[in-house]
């Protein structure tokens, strides 16, 4: 029976997605290794009967246009993220055959994390790694795999160990991980190597099809354009130089030992019917007790980190939630857990809240002077301002605002701990705005205060703040 070597049917017959040049030929330069590997992958998909359920994940790089050529499912992922995208495709479509196809810049520079962690999870995908030791598409810059002494546009004097580090050997690194099933490095230097590459590609895809786990095929490929060589010279250079740095061979192969479907990983899509179960788990322990809202509260609470500013916001928001209103709480703070600046925005509204931020508050709590100065001009006319009078020196906007200067920290200290100064402020807010009755708020506090040993002090602090406003 006749044997015919010809363009595999898992390529498109015409590359209609190509925007420039012939619809029959690839966009690759003469002598580029990508075409060889594309051809052998396409042939393997056809021969193994996998083409119909295959998904090709393209990287950023010269092979970004994989979807021009492969008559399969196609994704083009963000730079370096092909392995992460492939993980998602495989887990949500366990019967698909998922390949990520990546160059050295994509896989071993920007995508290092995705590469390692995908291998470490043993995802049942196949990764094709085209190593040509250079950034081809962007014009021949140094790649992680560029060899010592190799010139590139960013290493015009040649790569050095001191300035740029050594070339990264990805197969060797990944082979240290327990999960991967098959890791091999092959080349395109001559016919023998090409046929070994063909074999490795088929084996890797077969391992995936049998559910035997992660397979990784590194292919040393020539970049005649980036290397500034004629195609035959580039192949010779690959043989004479690259192979010494990146030895060919099988670095790991447990495919005979693992059972089929051992590495099957399936993540089911989010089950909307379980939504209520999830929400129940996050549900507030507060029971709804509607209270009419006299006016919307748009609050800005500000001070030092550690003064309970964010907690004050959470408390008020939860009171509002219990009362049946729309609420939002939006924190803003520096990287310091203590001592930095902190503020939060709280909205309690009758109608839906468009944005959780508060640009023009009608309630401002300032627990240090910088906060007064930062926010006083933003408070709407007639808005309430609460200052800790033991810490703040005052506001310049007293004539247009309803200012309450209250020694909150001192009052809190008097009931047991300065930590509850924020709840003194809560009492003051409720009293001044007339929004929530004391018993209502205190019942809420009994549920939401996490540190029960501090509960009584919180309740006393609330009363102190309330009384200060009502009775001075």
């Amino acid at each position, binding site marked *: 029976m*006749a*044997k*015919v*070597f*010809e*363009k*595999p049917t898992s*390529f498109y017959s015409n590359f209609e997605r190509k925007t420039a*040049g*012939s619809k*029959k*030929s*690839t966009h*690759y*330069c*003469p*002598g*580029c*290794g*990508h*075409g*060889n590997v*594309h*051809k*052998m992958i*396409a042939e393997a998909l056809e021969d193994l009967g996998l083409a119909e359920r295959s998904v090709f994940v393209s990287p950023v790089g010269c092979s970004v246009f994989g979807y021009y*050529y492969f008559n399969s499912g196609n994704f083009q992922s963000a730079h370096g993220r092909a392995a992460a995208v492939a993980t998602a495709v495989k887990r949500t479509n366990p019967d698909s055959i998922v390949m990520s196809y990546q160059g050295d810049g994509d896989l071993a520079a920007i995508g290092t994390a995705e590469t390692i962690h995908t291998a470490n999870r043993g995802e049942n995908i196949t990764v094709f790694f085209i190593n040509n030791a250079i950034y081809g598409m962007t014009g021949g810059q140094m790649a992680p795999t560029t060899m010592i002494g190799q010139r590139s546009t960013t290493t015009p004097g040649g790569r050095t160990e001191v300035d740029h580090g050594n070339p990264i050997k990805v197969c060797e690194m990944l082979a240290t991980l327990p999960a991967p099933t098959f890791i091999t490095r092959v080349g395109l230097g*001559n*016919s023998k190597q*090409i*046929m070994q590459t*063909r074999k490795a590609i088929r084996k890797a895809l077969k391992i995936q099809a049998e559910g035997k786990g992660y397979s990784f095929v590194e292919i040393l490929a020539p970049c*005649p354009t980036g290397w500034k060589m*004629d*195609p*035959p010279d580039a*192949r010779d250079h690959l043989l004479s130089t690259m192979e010494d740095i990146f030895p060919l061979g099988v670095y790991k192969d447990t495919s005979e030992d693992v059972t089929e479907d051992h590495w099957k990983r399936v993540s089911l899509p989010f089950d909307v019917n379980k939504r209520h179960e999830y929400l129940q788990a996050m549900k507030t322990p507060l029971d709804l007790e509607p209270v009419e809202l006299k006016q919307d509260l748009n609050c800005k609470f500000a001070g030092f980190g550690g003064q309970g500013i964010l907690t004050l916001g959470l408390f008020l928001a939860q009171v509002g939630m219990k009362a049946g209103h729309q609420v939002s709480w939006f924190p803003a703070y520096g990287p310091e857990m203590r001592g930095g600046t902190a503020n939060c925005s709280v909205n309690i509204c009758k109608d839906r809240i468009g944005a959780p931020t508060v640009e023009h508050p009608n309630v401002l709590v300032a627990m240090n002077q910088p906060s007064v100065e930062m926010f006083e001009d933003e408070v709407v006319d007639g808005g309430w301002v609460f200052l800790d009078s033991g810490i703040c020196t005052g506001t310049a906007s007293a004539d247009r605002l309803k200012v309450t200067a209250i020694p909150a920290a001192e009052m809190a200290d008097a009931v047991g701990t300065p930590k509850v100064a924020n709840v003194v402020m809560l009492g003051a807010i409720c009293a001044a705005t007339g929004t929530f009755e004391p018993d209502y708020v205190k019942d809420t506090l009994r549920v939401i205060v996490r540190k029960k040993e501090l509960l009584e002090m919180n309740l006393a602090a609330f009363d102190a703040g309330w009384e200060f406003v009502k009775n001075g």
Partner: protein
Amino acid sequence: MTTELKPYMDVDSELCKGCQLCLDVCPKSVIAISDKLNSSSYHPAYYIGDGCTGCGLCFYACPEPGAIRVVKP
């Protein structure tokens, strides 16, 4: 009486980019480069017409999916 069928390779001269890798790998050296330019300004490879064994090495060495076809009857 039937004519004996011989293996042959064929180059689509319009798709060939003239990289010459097929010349390098051909064990019988039966592929050559044309003096003429194709429409993409490459000198395409061509089969000299005799001696192909149908081994397929040129097919795998060729980076273009559709440029080379090898038939081994």
